[in-house]
């Protein structure tokens, strides 16, 4: 589904990603962990194609096609969807109208009203998009938009930060249901990459593989449970050591 090779990315001249390699197969749910400033959000933005994140080396391919230089909206058309950590406020555009437009554009057959009820966000429909939304409301709104887009590959940037447990469960349930995460990966078609700082959402969503990014490189990859419990006990320090070991090798 997605293949990132030796990716180096700069933001305003500063190199943030320093050779990231990542491969996500169809049906797989991956999770990307890492301390603040390690490059998690940068990787997401590079995959979606925000031109402010300048790719100076390496490639990104999606469904076998090199998308390294493709404009954002064309990547979206190919089937990539992203839920942002801090979506901007769009004044003067009502959420209700925006969802309608999205639904039309993606020829979506998702029942918006039903989803809105499931996510308990009907009170937001007549508000301007993201204006005055709380952390949890923003996350729910991002998820809802992605579900309408129905992408083959979804990126969620910190869907669990700033969200209370109740809403986190709602979000996780919707993702599980929509992406069919209750069946084996080999029977699924859609893939997911979830970025999470502390991994709370993994209490509710079962991931197939976890990666830890430290200072712009993937420090280690493995089974989510093992990596998470290691980090919870030893902190990200343990991953830094992992990198050093790799380098020595």
């Amino acid at each position, binding site marked *: 589904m997605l293949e990132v090779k030796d990716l180096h990315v700069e933001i305003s001249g500063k190199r943030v990603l320093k050779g990231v390699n990542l491969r996500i197969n169809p049906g797989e749910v991956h999770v990307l962990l890492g301390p603040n400033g390690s490059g998690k959000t940068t990787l997401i933005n590079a995959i979606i194609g925000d031109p402010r994140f300048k790719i100076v080396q390496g490639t990104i391919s999606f469904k076998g096609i090199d998308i390294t230089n493709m*404009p954002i*909206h064309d990547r*979206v058309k190919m089937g990539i969807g992203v839920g942002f950590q801090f979506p901007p406020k*769009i004044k*003067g555009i009502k959420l209700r109208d925006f969802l309608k437009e999205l639904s039309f554009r993606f020829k979506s057959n998702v029942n918006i009203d039903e989803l809105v009820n499931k996510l308990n966000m009907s009170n937001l429909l007549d508000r301007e998009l993201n204006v005055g939304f709380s952390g949890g409301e923003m996350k729910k709104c991002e998820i809802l938009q992605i579900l309408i887009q129905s992408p083959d590959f979804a990126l969620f940037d910190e869907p669990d930060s700033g969200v209370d447990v109740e809403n986190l469960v709602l979000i996780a349930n919707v993702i599980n249901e929509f992406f069919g995460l209750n069946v084996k990966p080999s029977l699924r078609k859609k893939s997911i990459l979830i970025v999470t700082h502390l991994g709370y959402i993994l209490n509710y969503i079962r991931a197939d593989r976890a990666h830890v990014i430290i200072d712009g490189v993937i420090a280690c990859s493995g089974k989510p449970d093992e990596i998470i419990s290691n980090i919870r006990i030893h902190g990200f320090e343990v991953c830094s050591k992992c990198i050093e070991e790799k380098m020595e090798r």
Partner: protein
Amino acid sequence: MYRGENGKIKDVKERAKKSIDKPPSVGLDLDISRFKFSSEVHEFISRDLEEKASSIGVDVSGKGRAGNYLQIDSSIVFEESLHQSVEVMSISKALETYDWLLDYYWRALDVDMDKFTALSELKGGGGVFIRVKSGVKVELPVQACFYLKTGGLSQNVHNIIIVEENAELNVLTGCASPRINEGLHVGVSEFYVKKGGKLTYTMIHSWSEGIDVRPRTGVVVEDGASFINVYVNVNPAKSIQTMPIVYLNGVNSRASLISVILASNNSIFDVGGAAYLKGDGSRVEIISKNIAKDESKIISRGLIVGEGRECRGHLECRGLLLSTKSIIQAIPQLEAKIMDATLSHEAAIGKLSEDEIYYLMARGFNEDEAISILIRGFMDIGIPDLPPMLNRYLKLVLDGASKKL
């Protein structure tokens, strides 16, 4: 006949003559000698007028309106009331019908304000008189349309609207012209909103690149009355300078002046609003949304003078620059003459945010579509005090404008 018989008219004419060369206090001056003041008589509505009118919310069939007025150049094509408590007629007919109307003639505005008010008096040709009787609330709008058709003409109109006590009136005005080399529109408007009354005045302009426009508006708002002015102009013109003056004389009187301006090509739009908060507890908000593209210039003015006890006023100016060669200038002025006036202003001018553009692109919109959505959002004005029908018209006009960009 009122002309010449009444001392006031003589005096007004004299003052106008003395001011015919007086430059405006703000904005670009114009040489008015290059314009002519008469044209052929028009009786029919052309296809282009019909189309242009409908693009600015004016239905020339006049259906669904409480009254209609249509003027082409200085010819009055129709003047009709469709509501028993609403009068709609040309100003000349009204002045002939009602002696008392002279009490309202040049009362909210000074005839010697500048050369344009003077011109309207000396070379006047048409204008509409609208009155709603006391206690009557009319939801359907009265529609007035002014079409400047003949190149080189100066179309000078004088309008008077009277909302009697506790009455409500909604007026929709469309002013337009086809593509002509040059032309001048001077619209003098005097509005009187009496005790407990409410007037909403929605004006949509659609000029063309050769036209200079100089409206002059004065509004008097009495006790407990409210006035809402909505001005939308999303089409180019050569130059526009307008700054309605609202006198909130009444206790607890209210006014909102809201404008949405999109300047393109080489247009120069100098648009603002002034409010004098004279009544105790009077309130005003002046909100302007300005978008400049190409090589256009917008000057957004606002003036609030607080004189009445516990009066409140707020000025808000938002500007969006879409090109490197366009200019937006905000000139807010607040003047408090009493200690317990609460006056505030905020102004912000900038370009579209990249964050927002890329966010929308990540929802599958291409760059142009994303920009169009953001501009539409920027221009959005939901005005709760306006009847749903007029809000729908505004929506149509603004939707159309954001798609054309």
